[in-house]
């Protein structure tokens, strides 16, 4: 993986969301998209050739919290919320990242594939499917959703921007996931 450079990394929690300026749509997004976008914003990267930049997201919980929130609206006058329904796709965050940064490269969203993101991104770059790749691991599980699904409560996101060649820290075979990559870069 020596010719693949880690240009930037980030690690964020909901406390970081207010540090960045987003457009008016941001308030209508679900917490997964808000946190994922914040992680990408925290990279501080100005993307260059946007047509060839892809986005890969991995998530364990997916849209679990939004699923529960959406389904609760079925009892409201007018029925289920269309604005929440569109965020019940776990891949919504890839779309929001692409829209905000104008990235028209390929997309991938892996459920439970947090240890596969860097390998997939490296393959895209190596085989020319993309010249750059925004990688995000993002999980938000609220208390009620966690209890229903039997999974722990969490709200955390990590991101990295990888490029083929160019400046940055080389990606190595030992970089298994975004969490450990972010820790290595920080150290």
């Amino acid at each position, binding site marked *: 993986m020596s010719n693949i450079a880690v240009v930037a990394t980030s690690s964020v929690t909901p406390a970081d969301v207010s540090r960045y300026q987003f457009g008016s749509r941001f308030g209508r997004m679900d917490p997964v998209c808000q946190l994922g976008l914040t992680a990408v914003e925290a990279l501080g990267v100005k993307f260059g050739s946007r047509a060839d930049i892809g986005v890969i997201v991995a998530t364990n919980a997916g849209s679990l919290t939004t699923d529960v929130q*959406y389904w609760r609206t079925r009892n409201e006058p007018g*029925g289920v919320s269309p604005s929440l329904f569109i965020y019940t796709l776990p891949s919504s965050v890839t779309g929001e990242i692409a829209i905000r940064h104008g990235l028209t490269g390929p997309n*991938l969203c*892996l*459920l439970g594939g947090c240890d596969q993101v860097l390998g997939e991104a490296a*393959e895209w770059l190596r085989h020319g*499917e993309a010249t750059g790749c925004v990688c995000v691991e993002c999980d938000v599980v609220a208390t009620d959703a966690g209890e*229903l699904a*039997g999974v722990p409560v969490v709200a955390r996101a990590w991101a990295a921007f990888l490029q083929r060649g160019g400046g940055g820290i080389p990606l190595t075979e030992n970089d298994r996931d975004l969490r450990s990559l972010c820790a290595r870069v920080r150290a």
Partner: protein
Amino acid sequence: MGGALEIAIAGCGAVSAVGADVAGLREAIRNNTSGLRPVPRFTGAAFQSNIVGATTVEGEDPIYELADRALREARHEAAGRLENIPPARIGLVLATTKANIEALERLTEDRPCAVSARRHWQAQWLAEDLAAAHGAAGPVQCVSVACISGMLAISQGAKLLQRDLADAVLVVGADCLSRFIVAGFSSLKALDPLGCRPFDRDRAGLSAGEAGAAVVLVRGEGATTIAGWGGSNDANHLTGPSRDGSGLALAIQRALDAARLKPRDIGYVNAHGTGTPYNDAMESLALRTIFGNACPPVSASKGMFGHTLGAAGVLETIVCVVAATERCLPGTPRLTTPVMAEVLHVPQTGARVRHSLKLGTGFGGVNAALVVRHE
């Protein structure tokens, strides 16, 4: 973009509204029949339409049943190619958008919900359980990228073979009908009350469907191979497709480049064809951008079994396989007045197709194109 040299489809399996196996699908293609019908549980104020593509699968964990049955059929057909491959070299890629979302309905309404049904609300656990049940002890992935999930799962499976991480990959797409999903599309006013009519002048929306569809991918030669794929994002709108079709055209061009083909090499296009006014208009423009006035025959299959979401890409790729092997280009069930002259009303028999193009688009602005080569 990506190309998968000598990645063969060794077996197919399909459970859909037109039958419990590929034979049922084949019959529906030959006869241009639609499996869409009214289903009482989707009747009421919360639902814009009760016309859906339902299977006969029932129970607390229907998505597992759909995926399991499709995998059994695909593995049976591919048995000769699988018999000497150890389990550790067999991978599995699952495509789904909502896994067993019906578990949420059950849990919030104090209805019975088996442990496995609750577990399969989380798609990655469904993938793990399917892999264990089908002897796939190699790499397991779970892809969820809206309505292109199935097409991406096929390309991910091909990549696992290219990277020598497996010698065979079971690719399965599955999603089941639920009030959660049908009410959601209703809230977006995205359902056609009369049932979906892709590429029809009077189309008014999609019809929800459910399916399990599986293919077995192996390295080497075969009657059908994956020649290339491409993906893109419109970077434009979360739910609305780009108005000019440029994003989908980009994905098609990337797939053609990966397959080292020209537009004239494509003999058949299986469109995404949801039946929504904007999708089909956008898709028509993308086809014109790539093919100009020499567009090959096009059909859309969602009038046959509905929009099966995470299964759609796999199921409709199987339609391409059946079309080539049967020399029968599918028609477009429920179509009356096509908006493009190239859209086939009824099946066209006797045509030999060397390369098919499968298209997909989805919420989040995602686009995908897959080129399938037929020997």
